[in-house]
């Protein structure tokens, strides 16, 4: 259709032409961010390994042949699936149990559990992994030493470097996210469904098995797929635990091929593994979307007229507390050992005799080190610019996806959603390939670019779901009053959704700070940030330094995120 064009009526830059301009700009930005890397990745997987992707016109299927013929590929896939499936199952089971206890029973200490879970979402998985290594390594792991001294075992009873340890630690690490999703699910369930079952003569057991669980199944299923996808894409725990345990998975394989300890990187093969991982993740994404759509049919969300009656646990309460607090203890232990190590000049296992030597010397040493100061400065630039740019773009794209019926709006929506299905490690590999020979490489801004691409789908989801709840007439009223489109966004639309904007900003902020994938893959001497420095100190090894930096990073994150999030959620509840 050839619509009439817009008159500028003397003063340019108002109304529809502003929209067209912004929309084209967004299309360009998002295409460069998202499509560029994916195309380069595919091109690289089809190029001969001797050449960089832009230097050759040859196409070869060599890498795919190598990938398909190698028996290791099967074991890689197997490892990845077993790892993701077991971690997801254990994690969702623990999270469901705890969420049910805090949402539906009279278990004491519910509020503190909920706050702890929110706080742990902010703790980098890397930090938890380091903590567990300090606790459980076979030589001088604190728990192993403790058992040796208490019971005289010569062999370490637990070992960190095994497939099972990796699975258990990963499942512990995904519990907080699962908890938040599942308790939201439980909270949104209409209590009348359960009451109806009780009124018509169902016992509490029958109600649970015949009504509650079936109603929750689609929701739990989609959360399960989401978690599975998250573990498939996980990189940091498989890197620090899985590699020493000799359990390579797809994500670490991609990393090792592109930054090997010795020898030249094999970008072609890395890219073909990346494509494999991409296909796997895209399949999961598709399954997730299907599950969500199925869940919509079971939608039982109603008004929050009243809360369901909590189940009285009686003596079972001790079991519930015991279970919940064992999990909490298991999450506290790695953090406590890191705190301990950070306060000592040299690593030693916790003991009374070492208490005298505790000091803040390591922190002082870290903060006066110019490398560390640069990393901290870089981190601040990285997290603030990523969060700000992502939310700015997301607000605008969100508006177009919700309010504009044009084809461009749909393309924007689809493009911004695409990164959801691209594992970060694959995306970073692609970004590396795309920008390796540009001046951008080696600067902090390439990390910003990476995080923008990874988190934009989250930002757009957040903003479009916020804007869809905002009555269209609110923005229209500003236009009719004579305000330009941008003024209407700036003065009316966005101020009305600012709690959601802030929430999204905090989420990107925290995830950008805790992410290791992007900083590690793109690391040079000049663009180190807290996460990559943490990795360097650990590898060096400077355990007290690594521990102290981990504590600093965590404290800073919690100090910014938790109070703001509490504030935002109190605003949103109104």
């Amino acid at each position, binding site marked *: *259709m050839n*619509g*009439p*064009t*817009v*008159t500028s*009526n003397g003063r340019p830059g*108002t*109304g*529809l032409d502003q929209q067209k301009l912004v929309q084209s700009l967004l299309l360009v930005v998002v295409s460069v961010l998202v499509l560029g890397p994916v195309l380069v990745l595919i091109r690289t997987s089809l190029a001969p390994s001797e050449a960089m992707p832009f230097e050759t016109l040859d196409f070869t299927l060599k890498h795919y042949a190598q990938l398909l013929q190698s028996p290791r590929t099967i074991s890689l896939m197997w490892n990845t699936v077993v790892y993701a499936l077991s971690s997801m199952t254990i994690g969702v089971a623990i999270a469901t149990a705890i969420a049910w206890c805090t949402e539906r029973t009279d278990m004491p200490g519910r509020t503190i559990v909920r706050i702890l879970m929110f706080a742990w979402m902010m703790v980098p998985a890397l930090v938890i992994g380091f903590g567990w290594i300090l606790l459980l390594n076979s030589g001088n792991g604190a728990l192993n030493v403790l058992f040796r001294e208490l019971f005289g075992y010569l062999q370490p009873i637990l070992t960190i470097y095994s497939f099972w340890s990796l699975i258990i630690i990963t499942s512990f690490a995904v519990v907080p996210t699962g908890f938040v999703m599942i308790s939201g699910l439980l909270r949104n369930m209409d209590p009348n469904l359960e009451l109806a079952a009780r009124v018509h003569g169902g016992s509490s057991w029958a109600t649970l098995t015949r009504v509650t669980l079936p109603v929750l199944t689609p929701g739990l299923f989609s959360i399960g797929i989401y978690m599975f996808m998250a573990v498939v894409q996980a990189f940091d725990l498989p890197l620090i635990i899985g590699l020493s345990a000799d359990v390579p998975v797809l994500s670490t394989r991609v990393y090792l091929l592109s930054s090997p300890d010795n020898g030249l990187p094999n970008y072609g093969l890395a890219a073909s593994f990346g494509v494999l991982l991409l296909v796997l993740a895209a399949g999961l994404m598709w399954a997730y979307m299907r599950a969500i759509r199925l869940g919509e049919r079971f939608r039982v969300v109603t008004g929050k007229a009243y809360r369901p009656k909590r189940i009285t646990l009686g003596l079972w309460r001790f079991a519930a507390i015991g279970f919940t607090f064992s999990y909490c203890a298991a999450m506290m232990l790695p953090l406590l050992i890191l705190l301990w190590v950070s306060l000592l000049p040299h690593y030693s296992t916790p003991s009374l005799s070492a208490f005298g030597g505790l000091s803040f010397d390591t922190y002082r040493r870290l903060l006066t080190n110019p490398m560390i100061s640069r990393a901290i400065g870089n981190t601040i630039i990285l997290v603030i610019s990523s969060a700000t740019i992502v939310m700015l773009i997301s607000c605008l794209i969100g508006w177009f996806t919700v309010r504009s*019926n044009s084809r461009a709006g749909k393309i924007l929506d689809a493009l911004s959603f695409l990164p959801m299905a691209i594992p970060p490690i694959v995306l970073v590999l692609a970004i590396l390939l795309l920008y390796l020979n540009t001046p951008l490489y080696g600067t902090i801004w390439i990390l910003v670019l990476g995080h923008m691409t990874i988190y934009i789908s989250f930002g757009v989801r957040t903003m479009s779901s916020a804007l869809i709840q905002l*009555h269209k*007439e*609110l923005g*229209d*009223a*500003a*236009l*009719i*009053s*004579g*305000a*330009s*489109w941008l*003024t*209407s966004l700036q*003065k*009316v639309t966005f*101020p*009305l959704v600012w709690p959601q904007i802030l929430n999204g900003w905090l989420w990107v902020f925290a995830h950008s700070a805790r992410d290791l994938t992007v900083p590690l893959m793109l690391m040079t001497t000049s663009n180190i940030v807290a996460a990559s420095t943490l990795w360097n100190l650990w590898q060096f090894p400077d355990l007290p330094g690594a521990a102290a930096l981990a504590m600093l990073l965590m404290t800073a994150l919690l100090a910014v995120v938790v109070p703001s999030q509490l504030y935002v959620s109190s605003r949103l509840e109104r």
Partner: protein
Amino acid sequence: MLLIEKLVKSYPGQHGQDAMLALRDISFKVEEGSFFTLLGPSGCGKTTTLQCIAGLEHPDKGLIQMGGKTMFSSRENLIVPANRRELGMVFQSYAVWPHMTVFENVAFPLVYGIKRAPTQEMRTRVLKALEMVELGQFADRPAPLLSGGQQQRVALARALVHAPRLLLLDEPLSNLDAKLRDTMRTEIRNLVKSLGITTIFVTHDQVEAVSMSDQILLMRAGKIVQQGSPRDIYLSPNSVFTADFMGRSNLITGVLDRSGETARAHTALGPISGVAGPALKPGASVVVVVRPRGIRIASTSESSGLNCFKARVQNMNFLGDVVETQVDIQGSKLTLMLNPYTAISVGQELTLEFPPERCVIVPSEVPSSCGPLK
């Protein structure tokens, strides 16, 4: 003041459905200072028309002019964006911005709009607008702390503060409770009449339309059915649809016998004399429209007069103001409204008279629906 010519608007079909024609060739004219109502059932195109006037939607074809200035013209390829049309609008949801105070809401058009005013002047104009809607003492109150009726007044003040060319009202009364709706009806009409501003009002409620408007444009399925003063539309419907939409009617089918001012139709009741439009020719199948209030009870001696029929009372429903009464005339059921103090009871025989000037003869329904675009 407002000229609409041959407006056509279609919506692309979704989920594999055919495209929908929302407006089919709409043309009308609104006089300066008139209170003009777009009336019709939901889906008739009235809101789409208003959105096109506001510039929030754009028609596929046609012309929109305001005060001689073209706002939209498909021939000249011209669209003036919504924020340049210098309009005021009250939305169905009021769209009062909850993050601002009453004052800030009303000041918005003068601060960010086309016709900006210096701070001092802006203050006086906003306060004057608030006085006008009797919200003077609420200026500093945050908008969410207002009642529904007060929010509506804020919306009205915001729509009028910048002296717009046109005031657009999109079902502004539908969210109010019944009692408040009655008050606001008179208040809005009096206010816009005292300001002399041309007003376009959209509603699906014929009572609102009749009580407020100078002119009513009745729409159905994207087309104009009838335009006229409330009195014209109510008393001289041009179709079964208008008659039915504007209030309860007795519809008696028949065949036209004689056309013109003194027309006559043959019906199951016998011949009925009435008024027919000039387009109707003898032999056409027609419907005689008689309002329940238009039927008179005649004395038995008149039983052989023009349009007089013997009837038996079948059912009486006491509603307070009136008694809704069902009667049977030779097997046909008719409704009439009786005085509550009447002495008539069920089973009684009556003679009813349909005064010929109250019997409107209209063509029987031509099926037309808002179907898919072929």
